[in-house]
């Protein structure tokens, strides 16, 4: 018999097959369940029973999670939930806060970044960071990008690395004829891409982004989002965002932090935004809470 169900639309294609090729090139170190539909990815960064305190106040509460390599992982949650604190633990930016105390492990390449023999400066070369507000140095575009290379005593062709980094940040076409102009003369969106170029110039493995588009207009923000997608071809991207639609658009995995610094749910982004396991997460992402 004829069946009217044949008239219904095809199911939503949840696959992101464009990343298959990239995934096939990844060398396997630690297999996790961090699958993004196309199979497992090795772990880039992991937290084990992480607790963070600011004085007597606990900001992160016993968080354990594995962040897959060369994927975009979004950290979302209401203000004060600890997501930015977690991000800053990964490259020890919290070391700069006197009252901050960290317990537990954060491993990068299998090494606890809080071990005594880890050099935080060297760590930050491998784990770069982009902040909410574009913060270029009051220097030329070239010098902004070259800064990290010069600090680390890079002996190669700095101009070539500057060009490579600006291309990687999708800024080269717009600034290649004004490399000696001040980075501060660029638009907000260009300044943020300049900061991304600065972050990738030392050839990091991980890029941390703390609300990188919140200060930008929608067009500039969309360029950054496109760039993040491209960056995930080469780097592990971990992004804090208050914009849940942005998290849904650009990330492979999403971690939901709620009050008290608790990681309540961490799963594939599609799962989080279509059918979260926890009612508190459902309430948060649908706007009923937070």
């Amino acid at each position: 018999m004829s069946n009217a169900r044949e008239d219904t639309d095809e199911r939503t294609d949840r696959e992101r097959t464009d990343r298959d090729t990239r995934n096939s090139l990844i060398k396997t170190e630690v297999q996790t369940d961090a699958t993004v539909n196309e199979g497992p990815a090795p772990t880039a960064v992991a937290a084990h029973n992480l607790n963070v305190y600011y004085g007597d106040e606990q900001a992160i509460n016993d968080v354990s999670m594995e962040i897959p390599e060369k994927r975009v992982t979004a950290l979302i949650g209401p203000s004060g939930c600890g997501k930015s604190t977690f991000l800053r633990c990964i490259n020890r930016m919290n070391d700069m806060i006197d009252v901050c105390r960290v317990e537990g492990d954060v491993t990068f390449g299998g090494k606890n970044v809080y071990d005594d023999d880890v050099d935080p400066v060297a760590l930050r070369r491998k784990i770069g960071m982009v902040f909410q507000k574009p913060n270029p140095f009051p220097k030329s575009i070239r010098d902004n990008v070259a800064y990290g290379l010069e600090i680390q005593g890079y002996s190669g062709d700095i101009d070539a690395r500057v060009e490579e980094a600006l291309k990687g940040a999708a800024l080269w076409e717009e600034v290649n004829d004004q490399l000696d102009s001040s980075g501060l003369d660029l638009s907000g969106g260009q300044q943020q891409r300049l900061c991304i170029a600065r972050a990738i110039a030392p050839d990091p493995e991980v890029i941390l982004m703390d609300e990188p588009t919140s200060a930008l207009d929608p067009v500039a923000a969309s360029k950054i989002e496109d760039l993040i997608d491209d960056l995930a071809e080469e780097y592990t991207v971990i992004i804090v965002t208050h914009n849940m639609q942005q998290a849904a658009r650009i990330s492979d995995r999403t971690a939901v932090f709620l009050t008290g610094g608790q990681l309540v749910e961490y799963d594939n982004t599609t799962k989080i935004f279509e059918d979260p396991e926890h009612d508190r997460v459902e309430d948060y992402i649908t706007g009923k809470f937070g």
Partner: protein
Amino acid sequence: MPRKTYQRRLEALREAVLEMSALVCDRYELAIEAAIDGDETLGRRVVDGDDDVNERYLRIEDECVALHALQQPVASDLRLVTASFKIITDLERVGDLATNLAAYGSDDGLHPAMEFRGLAESAGDMLADAMAAYETGDVDACYHIAARDEDLDERCRRASQAVLRHLVETDRARDHSSEALAEGLDAVSNGLLAVRDVERVGDHAVNVAARTLYMIENDDELLY
């Protein structure tokens, strides 16, 4: 609760879909009566009333698009909007099928051998139950409706055979004038079309149940 306006719009969407389904079920019941009795006046009411169904369909469709564009629903909200968007298509088509049925009754009504009332009411009950599941979030009812469709299909097959048997039997008995032949063919044709439309109402009820199951549990098991 934050996003009060948004939450009100979601609730209004759910209510609008239920109101549309109540209207469609009402028209379908009238169409059954029109078909069985050959009541042209009643049939005309059903056909004329289809504009109302179509207008509701378009209004709800617009609201679903607006909710997606302006509110970016996620999780259970997303599934409510998506399921509703699909369900109204099924309801609109049941409305169309009701107008078909109403038109079949324009002569002497459908042949009693088909036992059409029981058949058509079973399909209507499936649709009403599917919409009740949508209203209350009843997972078990969704599966039950899908199971009932197999029984409906079998009964439709037997009803079609009854119509054809009627054709053969009356053909033996009747005179073979062209006028009598045309009259017989009309009756058979209307009977077969009516059975087919009822069977499709059952399929739409299953679609509603499948979308409802997806809405409740993010489970697409019944979709195909």
